[in-house]
């Protein structure tokens, strides 16, 4: 299966940079410590007026820092824009493989690598220092797996959308910035979305960004109803269909221009 081979190759490529990634992991943990310190400072003496206490927020930030490596820090535009710039896209789109699967399976390899060499080490750092939540119910592990998988699908699709837009705009750096900001900001990386001011907190619950970070973290912490998975599933399917459709449009556009 060609997509499985692509996934494996991408995993192996990432293995080449293990030392550099370890350093980055330390930085990622420091980001986590900074966020935890902010929340500890903010909540000190005011825990009665908050739905979360300091420990809750410590667990929240620690889990969010781990999931960021699976559904936050993806390759900008999944590198589709490079193919558009150097013309390789015409060849890639013409291949008998499915372009969407071709691109996303490579990213999947990177994310499998991230899980083992980024999320788990960072989680261990938090477990040994400030504490890391361990889900209590056996059934939770099943829901967590599904929720995280759907979070990855949502985020990969959002990044694909940014990348494929290069077929029309050529430059995607700004689109990636905006996408990442919305993902981190409205996805609840630092601030759980129920803490946001009223109209924003309601709105963000329905946006796909919450499905990429906030919901999987809350399912992991056993603080959300498992029904949120349906909501994630909706966005995962909707975005995948949208991307398949856009890819087809991009292919037609190329054929008209003759590559």
């Amino acid at each position, binding site marked *: 299966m060609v997509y499985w081979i692509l996934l494996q190759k991408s995993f192996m490529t990432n293995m080449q940079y293990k030392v550099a990634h370890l350093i980055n992991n330390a930085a990622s943990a420091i*980001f986590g410590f900074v966020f935890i310190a*902010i929340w500890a400072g903010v909540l*000190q003496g005011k825990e009665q007026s908050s739905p979360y206490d300091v420990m809750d927020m410590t667990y929240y930030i620690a889990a969010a820092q781990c999931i960021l490596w699976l559904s936050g820090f993806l390759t900008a535009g999944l590198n589709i824009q490079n193919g558009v710039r150097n013309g390789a896209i015409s060849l890639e789109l013409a291949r008998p493989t499915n372009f969407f699967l071709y691109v996303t399976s490579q990213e999947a390899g990177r994310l499998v690598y991230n899980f083992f060499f980024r999320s788990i080490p960072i989680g261990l750092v938090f477990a040994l220092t400030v504490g890391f939540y361990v889900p209590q119910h056996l059934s939770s592990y099943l829901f967590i797996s599904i929720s995280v998988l759907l979070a990855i699908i949502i985020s990969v699709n959002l990044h694909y959308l940014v990348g494929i837009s290069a077929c029309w705009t050529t430059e995607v750096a700004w689109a990636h*910035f905006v996408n990442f*900001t919305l993902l981190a900001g409205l996805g609840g990386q630092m601030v759980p979305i129920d803490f946001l001011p009223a109209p924003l907190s309601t709105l963000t619950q329905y946006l796909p960004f919450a499905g990429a970070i906030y919901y999987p973290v809350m399912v992991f912490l056993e603080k959300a109803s498992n029904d949120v998975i349906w909501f994630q599933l909706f966005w995962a399917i909707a975005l995948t269909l949208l991307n398949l459709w856009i890819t087809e449009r991009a292919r037609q556009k190329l054929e008209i221009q003759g590559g």
Partner: protein
Amino acid sequence: MNLYLKLLSGSLRSRMQYKMNFLVSSLSYGLIMAVDFVLLAAILQRFDDVKGWNLYEVGLLYGISSVAITLYRVFGVEIHNFERYMVEGEFDSLLIRPVSPLSLLLTKNLDLSRIGGTAQGVIILVISIIGLSLESFDMLLLLLYLPVSIASGVVICFSLGLLTATLAFWTQRIKDFQTFTLYAPFNAANYPMNIYPGWLKIIFFTVIPVGFMNYTPILFLLNKGGNIWNLAWPPAVALVFLCLSLRFWQFGIRHYHSTGS
């Protein structure tokens, strides 16, 4: 200096060829930082303060730190992306020119899209200063001192950027180090240093001295502690760090071996 301005204006002209791209990227970069601050504001609106610092006080720290790092990203783009010169072997071409490699790097390119972030930092500073409702004397002192604080921040940021870039002579890749030496510390400097555990505070006042740029002087300027010496620390630390980073850069160049590719 004349040469610097000439090279700079050339780079500026080439950038302005793509006005639409410049506008969109500036706006989006500004938006990113705005979302970041809105989140902070949302927390502080709800909980009033973070260890005794209210929204406007944190806003001062935040504004200085944002303006400093974004100005560095405008002028230091080639330093920031220095690993390209190592990976693609372009550094050799800089060594054979009659101008120092550092001057060439500083004048080669400007990343004007980051100006959106600078503007957003300035807006946060203005809002914070108005919101603080200080006595006129304190206000005057703060306004007079802000440029010093920002300039010190830019120099500290540039020095850290140059120290990190120099690592590329040995490690080739520096992107992963930058998260450690620039992004995480400058993000931390958006907030008061008194919220951090001891070991983090030690790092931010020694090896990565971002705490001096805004926290130390603002502490005194807002009558939160310290004395007049707090105002001398930022430029002094910036100068020492600049000298250290320049020496390390020279040391790196002396040990540079071309890949021959």
